[in-house]
């Protein structure tokens, strides 16, 4: 199976994530779309790891460890980000990101 299939799938998921960030105003949905983009990249890393293992390289498990570290950072990011969104909701009673444009002034 050509690795291009996985590349195209990852590109599709990544671009859906980009579209979601551009199209939505709900901060939680935007946050979820960022998670979707991270997962698209993770999937591509795992596919490349399998590709190099099949091509005979022995150090290809570094890619899977990289995915592991991406998951670690994503978990930390989600905890802090959701805390920020909850605080924003407590202050403004909304999760609309347009309200945050007051940061401009």
């Amino acid at each position, binding site marked *: 199976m050509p690795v291009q299939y996985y590349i195209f799938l990852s590109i599709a998921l990544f671009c859906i994530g980009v579209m979601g960030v551009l199209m939505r105003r709900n901060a*939680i949905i935007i946050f979820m779309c960022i998670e979707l983009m991270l997962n698209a990249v993770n999937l591509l890393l795992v596919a490349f790891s*399998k590709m190099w293992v099949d091509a005979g390289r022995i150090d290809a498990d570094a890619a899977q460890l990289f995915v592991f570290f991406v998951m670690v950072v994503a978990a930390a990011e989600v905890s802090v980000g959701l805390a920020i969104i909850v605080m924003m909701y407590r202050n403004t009673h909304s999760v609309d990101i347009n309200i945050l444009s007051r940061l401009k002034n």
Partner: protein
Amino acid sequence: MGTMSTELMIFILLSAIAIASALGVILSKNPVNSVLNMIICFVAIAGHYIMLNAQFLFVVHLIVYTGAIMVLFLFVLMMMNLNADIEPQKRNWLKYAGAISGGALLLVLVGALREASLPAVQAGSATDIGLIANLGKTLFTSYVVPFELSSVLFLSAMVGAVVIGKK
């Protein structure tokens, strides 16, 4: 040939589920439906991991993403009591602009990587590279420093979340 076509069929099925549920995430009006679609998408990606011989990542992905992160999202959503009626909507032309920008990015990336010459993924070839024993050995020999640094990152994230949440 028989195993090959089975692999391809599973790949197409999982990819269709992943892309359809990802579209459901960004298109559904109700945020709770978005989270549920996201969980389906993550389960499909976990299926891809097991097809790619990444057993450890399969388990971690299911536990961390589907089990912890998405449940956290659901908790927050239900705490805020959001629904489709108060969902903020962008203006229509902004939505079209976002969709066109994302589609243009898709076209550029596909066009750039279509001709890349890379070795193929051999379907059905079993490797033990994704097993915990193998990954753990590499993690604790070559990647000890990032591992320890990630513990500091988690500590600071925990402290940060508590401090922000207490305010």
